[in-house]
């Protein structure tokens, strides 16, 4: 690290790590926020990405999966791209990081800086357009060795409550009505005939009497013909919720850290060791991490400094390998299964069928469970199938610096050369095993996949800096060269027909796949920066970077990225001298151009035959991409204007910024007619704008010797507008989303519900015709779902109007309390999980409680149509839910034991703390995860966790 320190009178002025150096917050020309390590330390956070929500403005996060170790996704200042990546660049200790984010121990983090605008990020050139997250690890401090031991223990449960689903009796009632409605409306039966037919076909559809929990009535008798309702005195012999059987509340999590740090005037060091073991709330899921880190830096002479940071991490994640609507994905099957299905095998009287040891046996449905869940039990599947990912990540950051700021170096004073080398190395060993007794691969005698990948990347740079002051003129100039190389090697093989208990390929008899390949990616860069300030009043900053990326054709490989910025410290002006209540006031402005080369392919411009199509023993290939030599970076023109104010004797700080970020030459899959054999080719054609306003207010309400009470309020807006697509196609429609010129990205585009026909219970929709100019004319209401599908409306997007956080910290003597809440207003979510339990596709799906509002007989006025199974509907806005939410993200209560006691015990300090993460979430629909993703959909995914934890920290 090239630390450029200058004396300053402002005690509270933060020094932050920025691109290739450091800067002071008050005089920084760009936009950057710092999150201190203390904000993360006491929280039960396993993956650092989950600590970012609510800590800074301008950052949108997803909740991330509840699978221990999994990351959350973040976007900085809106959605930078349509087809290319929107992910920010992660930089660890000055070098872009290619390890896994879950391999970083949050306790090792000194601070994180989020670079949001061009002035802050342009030095990351082709990789900086989506913002940069800079993670800086802890360094030793001069002084005696400080030893810190911290342990926490915690217990996790579901953070988001389950959807409200109907009871067994209501389920039977709705199934009956679905059958009856089918006979009436599809097959043209009379109402009475349909009722009789429905009563008679209940048994076939619900699994015969074995699966009838109501042992005092048979399926054909359970509906009272006089009322058409389930008989009220029906008695259920079992009610075994599948989800309850596979989730365990109070999943245990414990974490232990040991840190040694210290140093002399010349050499400083920090060692840390960490161990984490976190059970997931889903049976069989777990994450363990072992990590060690050593950060050493030494000043050999007054002109020679060296540093080396090394970290080694080994982690194992046990997870469930299924996703989406796979039967074996319990978040699909168990969460929405018929409540009639028992977990354990039942006899005809509804009693458990016991094995020879007298234990109940899991029901795999082999005795005739209806529908498609053949030979499947969710608990059995979770226990018998196995999946893990083992990651070994090694990171090295090393370098040395020559030169000095001392006067006796003459003309060389202030000139420094530093050479840095950073390397990330990762091997991943993954296994997916499907068991040989039940389910997917029982036929095949079990199936095992093994994956092995090796990733190695390095960054090598040489940087020259010159830092001098002449009177009131202060200069800091930097020039450098960097080379980045990335190599990824993939190997996978699978075999079936295995030996029980041996989770290896060797004993398997049949190879079902074997594959390997290697990817390479390289960037060469030249860059420079010029910083100047006059009297620490007027700051000017300019940077430039030229990158050549292997992703592009040699004629379009090199791109230039730059920024200029200024900062005016108004409070330093003479006319402000008398304004005592202003401690600091600065105004800043920056503009620049950044790039995004992450097109999700390393070979974007080439036309290629994919050789993964062997036909028997003949080599086979298919064309996968069209050549476009001109494909190149996305460019992002990024303007930022803002002010920072520190007022009232440092008790009030206000900062606000406005940004306008225009992505041009946006990478699009340039649409082609599908009939050409391609839906498009990679091309730089579109434009999109993200703009927004961000503010942060921190106030100290009480500050006495014993009491301290701070409140922080942050808010951000983001407006997104697609400015230009292609001439051929000013709109890209994909399912329920439209990307259209003049509208926000991923605008919901679907039919609009218009209530329910009281006569038939059919779903009604708004429909329209179009005149010759394409304008909507003649709107009317119809039950014709095909017409509704042709009459779609633009119905908003996931993008919130305002989001942010409110946090507070309160301390009294040695007790401290902090609360972090987050909020998001506006935006919509299409909850397909909700839709899936309101427009059921299968007889064995359960219904959401809202389905009880359904139309039942002619004359009923309601918003839920008649019950149908696998009915035909136009996807409509009934399932478009307001995305606003309020969440209590974290509450931490700590107590630092009195110093007097410590001195007696010869300890430095002891702090005990308790914390709860994701305590509560308030949304418009119970069960829905409002932060599943950025486009506003939901999926059958591992629900996020709430974690209670307790811990202590000892320093000596």
């Amino acid at each position, binding site marked *: 690290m090239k630390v450029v320190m200058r004396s300053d009178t402002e005690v509270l002025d933060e020094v932050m790590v920025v691109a290739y150096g450091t800067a002071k917050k008050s005089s920084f020309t760009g936009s950057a926020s710092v999150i201190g390590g203390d904000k993360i330390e006491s929280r039960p956070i396993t993956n650092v990405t989950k600590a970012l929500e609510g800590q800074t403005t301008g950052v949108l996060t997803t909740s991330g999966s509840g699978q221990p170790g999994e990351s959350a996704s973040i976007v900085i200042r809106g959605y930078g791209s349509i087809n290319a990546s929107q992910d920010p660049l992660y930089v660890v200790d000055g070098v872009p990081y290619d390890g896994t984010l879950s391999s970083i121990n949050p306790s090792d983090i000194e601070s994180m800086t989020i670079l949001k605008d061009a002035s802050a990020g342009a030095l990351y050139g082709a990789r900086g357009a989506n913002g940069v997250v800079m993670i800086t690890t802890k360094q030793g401090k001069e002084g005696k060795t400080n030893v810190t031991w911290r342990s926490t223990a915690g217990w996790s449960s579901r953070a988001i409550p389950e959807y409200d689903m109907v009871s067994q009796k209501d389920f039977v009632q709705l199934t009956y009505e679905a059958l009856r409605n089918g006979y009436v409306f599809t*097959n043209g039966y009379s109402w009475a005939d349909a009722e009789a037919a429905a009563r008679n076909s209940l048994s076939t559809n619900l699994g015969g009497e074995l699966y009838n929990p109501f042992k005092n009535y048979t399926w054909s008798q359970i509906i009272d013909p006089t009322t058409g309702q389930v008989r009220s005195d029906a008695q259920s012999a079992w009610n075994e919720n599948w989800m309850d059987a596979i989730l365990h509340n109070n999943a245990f999590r414990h974490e232990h850290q040991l840190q040694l740090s210290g140093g002399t005037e010349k050499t400083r060091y920090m060692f840390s060791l960490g161990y984490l073991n976190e059970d997931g709330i889903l049976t069989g899921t777990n994450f363990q991490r072992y990590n060690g880190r050593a950060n050493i830096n030494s000043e050999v002479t007054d002109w020679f400094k060296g540093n080396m940071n090394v970290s080694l991490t080994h982690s194992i994640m046990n997870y469930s390998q299924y996703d989406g609507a796979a039967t074996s994905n319990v978040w699909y099957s168990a969460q929405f299964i018929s409540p009639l299905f028992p977990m354990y095998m039942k006899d005809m009287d509804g009693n458990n069928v016991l094995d020879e040891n007298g234990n109940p046996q899991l029901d795999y449905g082999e005795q005739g469970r209806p529908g498609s869940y053949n030979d499947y039990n969710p608990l059995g599947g979770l226990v018998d199938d196995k999946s893990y990912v083992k990651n070994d990540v090694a990171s090295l950051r090393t370098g040395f610096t*020559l030169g000095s700021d001392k006067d006796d170096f003459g003309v060389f004073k202030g000139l420094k050369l530093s050479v840095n080398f950073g390397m990330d190395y990762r091997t991943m060993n993954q296994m997916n095993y499907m068991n040989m007794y039940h389910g997917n691969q029982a036929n095949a005698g079990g199936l095992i996949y093994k994956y092995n990948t090796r990733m190695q990347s390095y960054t090598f740079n040489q940087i020259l800096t010159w830092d001098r002051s002449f009177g009131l003129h202060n200069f800091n100039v930097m020039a450098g060269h960097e080379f980045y190389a990335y190599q990824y090697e993939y190997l996978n093989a699978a075999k079936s027909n295995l030996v029980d208990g041996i989770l290896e390929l060797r004993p398997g008899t049949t190879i079902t796949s074997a594959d390997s390949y290697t990817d390479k990616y390289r960037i060469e860069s030249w860059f420079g920066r010029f910083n100047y300030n006059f009297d620490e009043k007027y700051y000017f900053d300019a940077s430039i970077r030229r990158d050549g990326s292997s992703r592009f054709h040699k004629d379009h490989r090199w791109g230039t990225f730059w920024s200029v910025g200024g900062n005016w410290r108004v409070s330093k002006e003479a006319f402000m001298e008398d304004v005592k209540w202003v401690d600091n006031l600065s105004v800043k402005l920056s503009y620049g151009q950044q790039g995004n080369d992450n097109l999700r392919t390393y070979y974007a411009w080439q036309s290629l*035959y994919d050789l993964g199509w062997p036909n028997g023993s003949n080599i086979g290939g298919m064309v996968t991409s069209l050549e476009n030599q001109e494909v190149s970076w996305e460019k992002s023109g990024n303007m930022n204007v803002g002010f920072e104010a520190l007022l009232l004797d440092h008790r009030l700080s206000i900062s606000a910024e406005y940004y306008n970020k225009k992505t041009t030459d946006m990478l699009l899959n340039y649409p082609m007619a599908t009939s050409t054999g391609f839906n498009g080719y990679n091309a730089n054609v579109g434009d999109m704008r993200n703009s927004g306003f961000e503010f942060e207010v921190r106030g100290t309400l009480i500050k006495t010797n014993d009491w301290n009470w701070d409140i922080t309020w942050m808010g951000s807006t983001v407006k997104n507008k697609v400015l230009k697509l292609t001439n051929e196609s000013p709109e890209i429609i994909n399912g329920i989303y439209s990307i259209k010129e003049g509208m926000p990205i991923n605008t919901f585009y679907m039919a609009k519900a218009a209530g329910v026909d009281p006569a038939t219970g059919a779903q009604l929709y708004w429909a329209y015709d179009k005149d010759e100019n394409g304008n909507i004319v003649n709107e009317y209401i119809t039950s014709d779902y095909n017409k509704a599908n042709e009459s779609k409306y633009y119905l908003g997007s996931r993008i919130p109007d305002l989001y942010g956080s409110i946090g507070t910290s309160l301390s009294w003597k040695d007790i401290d309390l902090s609360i972090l809440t987050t909020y998001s207003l506006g935006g919509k979510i299409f909850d397909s999980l909700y839709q899936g339990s309101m427009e059921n596709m299968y007889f064995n799906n359960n219904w959401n409680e809202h389905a009880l509002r359904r139309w039942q007989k002619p004359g009923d006025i309601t918003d839920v149509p008649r019950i149908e199974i696998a009915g035909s509907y136009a996807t409509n806005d009934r399932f478009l839910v307001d995305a606003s939410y309020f969440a209590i993200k974290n509450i931490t209560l700590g107590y630092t034991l009195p110093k007097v006691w410590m001195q007696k015990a010869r300890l430095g300090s002891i702090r005990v703390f308790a914390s709860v993460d994701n305590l509560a979430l308030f949304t418009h629909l119970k069960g829905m995860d409002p932060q599943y993703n950025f486009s506003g959909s939901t999926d059958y995914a591992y629900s996020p966790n709430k974690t209670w934890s307790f811990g202590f920290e000892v320093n000596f």
Partner: protein
Amino acid sequence: MKKILKYTFAGLMGCTALTSCLDSSLETSPTDSMSGTTLLANANSALIPLNGIYRSMYASWSPAANEHQSFGINSYALMADVMGDDMIMDAMGSGWFWYDCIYNVKSRYTSTAWRSYDIWNCYYTWISNANYILAAEETMSGASADVNYVIGQAYAIRAYSYFMLAQNFARTYKGHESDPCCPIYTEPTVAGTEGQPRSTVQQVYDLVTSDIQKAVEKLSAAPAQTHKTHIDASVAYGIQARIALTMEDWNLAKTAAHNAIEASGCTVLPAETIKGLNDATLSNVMWGAPIQNDQTSGYASFFAHMDPNVAYANSARKQINKDLYDNIMLPTDERKCWWDPTDTNSERGAEAGYQQVKFSFSDYTVWMGDYVWMRVEEMYLTAAEAECMLGEEDAAKQDLYAVMSQRVEGYSTTKTGTALGKTSSDRTGSLREEIIDQRRIELWGEYGRIWDLRRLRQGFRRTAAQGWPAAALLNNRPTDDPECYMWVLTIPQTEFDGNVNMDLSQDQNPIDDYK
């Protein structure tokens, strides 16, 4: 000390200049792909793109969320069968093919996870891959027989693909020659290739007939197939026969079918021998895919939907129409062993149709089973039908007997004439109906019943008595009207998104059954 600094400084600056790397280090290329220009240079390496196309005819590669009902030729044949009257889906099971069966896919054209996109994309992918090969016709080096082998197959693939597109995206050829069909491309696609407007049915069939004729010519001067997936002269004749049958070009259908039989050297085999339909090496198979165990597609495969040993087929059983089995198939027909009326596994009990056992994995523990795409029995039945239509009833019966002598002991028929009922249940007792009946039984699950119904311009009515479940009866739909658009798929949204010459409001097929 400072001198050391100076020298080190200067030295390091020099080193820095050296690390500035050569531009060549920024040249990278993938290890799982290669460029087309080298592949198409000679007839030997040009087999690579050809084999790629064939692999995609039995691999599963549709966009995720749809791949379990998209695995090339067999998936479309199965789709076209469950759309008809003879193959009953007992229940929706996991939902695959069910929406084809109940005609609930056309309105889903905006999604890439449904049939409209799947079929359109699949055939056009084959066409574009074939067009690259055809573009190299003049420049490809190698012995002329070897070049013919490659180019002839590419023509055949293009003909086959356009033929299948025409069968799915327009009403049948006869009587609808001037209806809009699909866009035509005969040049290789490059970045920026402009989308073409819909050609007429006639224009598409003109290309199809000329392509298949070229294929026949080239392949007649080329070696026989070196792999069962490859289209050689016999298979090209077979495809020509199918096309001619659909176009009602009876003379061509007759000669092409006879040529196919002769060129293939295949022989009709007994029903019991071919039961399972999973062995492409049998002597009746003209075209098929012998699938090796690391190239199977697991659940996303034909047999997973047919063989009740596997979950999909178990929960969505494929059964034969009981009317066809009980009343139309002769009691002594050996093909009765392809279905099992005694199977009681259906949840619908006696209401169900009869469970199929015609198709099964050869070894379900490793998902093994070859696909059969064309067998010689079909050619005899095609020739018989064509001859019947030409009034050559004796010849027709000869060809019919070539199959039936292996199916029903002592089979003969005195039927005569070409009359067909308005729907498949309206019986006329004609010879043509007899030939079609045998075709329904023989090719059940293989050919795609709806494509026959379309070209015969026959409607159908599903009934509970036939064994159809209530949810798939389609009572309120015009399945008895062959002029309706129920059988004509919608064109996917992605086509309109990328095609300046096609407009959704003007060029989309009717989304409803009629409009």
